[in-house]
């Protein structure tokens, strides 16, 4: 436990290369190995101080794992390591064709919800997944190969739109359930 270093970056923590392309199997193996060492369950019989430390370490490992596992959070984190802010709150300038496509997708989800059409919703969800994967592939290219971090930040802003749409689709499913 002495070797646990809070100041390591998340990639380093899991012994992974600092790049967007992810060895997800490797991440999972490392995550479990780390939690097996630091989880509070391992020190439940020790002093309060030990337990507090375990909670902090385990919290950090969970945070690091969730950050790297999520494509959008991983990109955001990686860009922050390169001192690039994704400006998701402030930079709202988007290509008009992207915005139009987003509007259409939203309307299609809304229409599926109104018509209580599960298969139409499935279709939109599948569509969104395809688009998201394509953006992620582009992101990998921009970060790992071209190393154009400003362009990557723009892609993250697009991904944020997709993420919000995914949330809307999820709540539409819940609503159709009732």
């Amino acid at each position: 436990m002495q070797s646990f270093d809070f100041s390591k970056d998340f990639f380093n923590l899991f012994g992974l290369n600092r790049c967007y392309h992810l060895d997800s199997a490797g991440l999972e193996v490392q995550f479990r190995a780390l939690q097996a060492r630091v989880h509070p369950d391992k020190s439940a019989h020790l002093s309060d101080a030990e337990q507090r430390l375990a909670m902090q370490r385990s919290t950090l490992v969970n945070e690091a794992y969730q950050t790297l596992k999520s494509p959008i959070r991983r990109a955001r984190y990686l860009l922050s390591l390169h001192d690039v802010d994704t400006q998701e709150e402030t930079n709202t300038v988007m290509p008009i064709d992207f915005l139009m496509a987003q509007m259409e997708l939203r309307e299609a989800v809304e229409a599926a919800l109104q018509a209580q059409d599960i298969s139409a919703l499935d279709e939109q969800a599948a569509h969104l997944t395809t688009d998201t994967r394509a953006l992620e592939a582009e992101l990998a290219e921009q970060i790992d190969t071209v190393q154009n971090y400003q362009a990557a930040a723009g892609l993250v802003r697009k991904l944020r739109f997709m993420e919000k749409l995914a949330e809307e689709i999820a709540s539409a499913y819940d609503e159709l359930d009732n």
Partner: protein
Amino acid sequence: MALLQISEPGLSTAPHQHRLAVGIDLGTTNSLVATVRNGISVVLNDENGRAMLPSVVRYATDVVVGEAAQAAQSDDPVNTIVSVKRFMGRSLADIGDTSRLPYRFVDTGSMLQLRTVAGVKSPVEVSAEILKVLRLRAEESLGGELVGAVITVPAYFDDAQRQATKDAAKLAGINVLRLLNEPTAAAIAYGLDNASEGVYAVYDLGGGTFDISILRLSRGVFEVLSANGDSALGGDDFDQRIHCWLLEKNQLSVLSPQDTRLLLTLARSAKEQLTEHVDARITAVLSSGEIIDNVITRTDFQEMSTNLIQRTLQLMRRALRDAKLGVDEVKGVVMVGGATRMPQVQHAVGEFFGQTPLTNLDPDKVVALGAAIQANLLAGNRSSDDWLLLDVIPLSLGLETMGGLVEKIIPRNSTIPTARAQEFTTYKDGQTAMSLHVLQGERELVSDCRSLAQFELRGIPPMVAGAARIRVTFQVDADGLLNVAARELGSGVEAAIVVKPSYGLSDAEITRMLQDSTQHAQDDMQARAHREQQTEANQLLDAVQNALDQDGSLLSESQRSEIESRMTALKVTLPLADHLAIKRAVTTLNDATVSFAQARMDKSVKRVLSGMNISDLEIK
């Protein structure tokens, strides 16, 4: 030789140093205690060979717990407390209709209390009596003092209910090694027993609560992927359906409490009979002398309970969606809780998953058995087949922001322990205090979520609106308990609170909140847009007013009156429900202030530059 057994202190123990630890299932109807003996988890019986202790406490000259208390239930209902689990962490207002409960409640405004012959008792004290009996049973049976215990709670228990449970254990002199979610405990017992690998669903239908957890089991790891539930759905509701059927069959309307209790008891035993038989006969003589004699078939019972079962399947679908898994990816379904003995439940669950549910462990005991296994591990009795348990928090945690909206800080199904920090800023110029309101639930409006705690951060140095940076940190520990801290980053002013609210969510509230969160997703979006627009409008009005007060002299008379008339126009739209109207008025006012803002900018640049020398300017 002992000399050869070198191990790190505290991490491993020699066999003769085995630390005594137990798992306790503190149930609504019955409670159990179990321990690991010679590597095998066993339930500990009382001196009469009974495993289950009825969760009933009677206050008389002595405190009586269990069977004896249960027997006195009808003679001394006021001092005999049953199903106290339903009162844990709850206020009287949370319980709602108490007219059919025989207790003398004390409304404290926070957690309710009960007036008995032995004085006023809180639910925590009543639960502690049950826990004390189980602790004594364990210590007598194991021949020593306990190092600690794992106490199980429904996965859907909120912060207040968890905290109350932990307090009860402390009051009973028990060192709590961990609060463990009931379905997770069952998964441990099942998974280790069967060396299972893959995705498993735990369907836990108890007396008063329903929990569903989706877990991934792999070598040495139990990972909870999602949890869902309904803390107001259980076996009791099935009794209630038979009860209503009886009322309808016999055209009965208002019954005395005694008759109601009689029919409910008969309904329950009919339900149990229908597990083994295709029909059950219900006979009774009511206090009016009226005779009840009906035969209920399994088909009748199936029909009247379809909705209840559908509701559990609906929550199951949600849990699967949250886990991003399809039905076909679930390798096995573990059934927990006495109510899963009903054939129609097993059939529906089997049909849903396309496979026969796993029922080879006693559904009444599996939770206690799993808790004991985990307690043994946590106490430090490590064995070679060590495992890791990764559980989640079932309900989202958030903070109130401007306009009565909830900003989610920690989303549901986050793996614990977890922490998340979020920065907030001040809303008004010169604001020196900030009130923090901690909430739990899935809805977007504060009024639709459960209030957990409120506290204030004071002593923020006066700054212009938006300049202060207040970082609020939520930390959820491995017991699922929340701790909140706030800090102003510039000055270092700090405030913290262990969220120990005096009451929690009522069952009905959680159910309502869950239903509402999905049914009203649309309403929420509308309401959110409206409040955001109102907030933006208020901020703009404040900002413009401030600017007028400070730099009004930069404007001509006509410019000033133009701005003022548009401010009035905006104020008029504020109380309206139409957020688009507010938006239009905001845009109009914004347009009118463009040249004013430019003039102010020029003025302030001049002001700043006048106090600087060249070297300062070169930095940027």
